[in-house]
């Protein structure tokens, strides 16, 4: 209990409420908040204090600010909707150029992903090995094919000689 009070008094809660607590402090605080209602209560009180401080320092926005925000939100919505339409009907006969120029005024061009691939360097050696083995197998196949034909010819000659010697 004393330790929790010490913790609350340490100023960590204030640092958290103002957004300057470290990750480790935040983790610890959230753990303690879930475990000890005093911490949760103290945090709530600090959030209320912070709201009161902000109220004291408030500046009334000039008239028309909401209209500006609303207009910007509507722009975002229009852009999203036109995007959705382009995705839904990609092959319809539409004035593509005009839509592109309209879009270009609303968007910043960002380079899309290219067909370029990234492969680990080890694959270079694997591909070279496979290529070399392929060549060796091909050479072996040709060698054994020629060897086989040569042997067959020799057997044929021997058979002919044997037949001739029997005939005599």
């Amino acid at each position, binding site marked *: 209990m004393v330790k929790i009070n010490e913790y609350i008094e340490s100023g960590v809660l204030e640092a958290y409420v103002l957004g*300057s607590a470290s990750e480790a402090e935040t983790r610890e605080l959230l753990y303690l908040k879930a475990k000890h209602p005093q911490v949760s209560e103290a945090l709530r009180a600090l959030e209320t204090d*912070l709201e009161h*401080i902000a109220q004291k320092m408030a500046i009334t926005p000039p008239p028309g600010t909401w209209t500006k925000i609303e207009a910007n*939100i509507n722009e975002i*919505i229009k852009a999203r909707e036109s995007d959705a339409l382009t995705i839904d009907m990609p092959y319809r006969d539409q004035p593509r150029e005009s839509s592109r120029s309209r879009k270009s005024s609303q968007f910043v061009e960002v380079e899309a992903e290219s067909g370029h691939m990234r492969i680990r360097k080890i694959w270079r050696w694997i591909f070279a090995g496979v290529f070399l083995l392929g060549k060796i197998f091909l050479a072996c196949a040709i060698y054994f094919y020629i060897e086989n034909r040569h042997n067959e010819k020799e057997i044929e000659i021997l058979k002919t000689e044997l037949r001739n010697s029997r005939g005599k």
Partner: protein
Amino acid sequence: MLKTDRQVLTQSGPVDVRSLYDKYAGMLLGYVFEIVRDRKLAEECLVHVFCELSAAFGEENSDGPQNWFQLQRFAKGKLQAFTAVAGNGAAAEGIAMHHSNDQHLAALSAEQKRVFHDIYYHGKSVGLLAAELNRTEEFIRKTLKEAFAILRKSGEN
């Protein structure tokens, strides 16, 4: 029935963008003004934050900020790049810089004011501020706590 983008952007979540604006726009403008020290720019930032807010409400599995604490954090995140620039200027000019909100922070000592201001408005970490002021982190946290207590008392009076 599926919601349209328009509905999602302006009305999704228990608290919509408009009601957040009605409740907190003045507070947010005051907060942003303390960071940028330029009324026109602060108003532009306010518009920017609320537009970002509408997008946050539109995101899947996200209700967006619901109260001042969350809204202030959201705004701080969106204005972080700006805060960093303004924060560096403030750090260079030191404690003498903190005068615009003197009437609200008058009850604080110069050091308490500096700690509160740099952490709340410029998002400096306790560690960074401790290094800048050549103090321990514990001292900074204690000073922050004292500042909060004083501001709470002055608010009650």
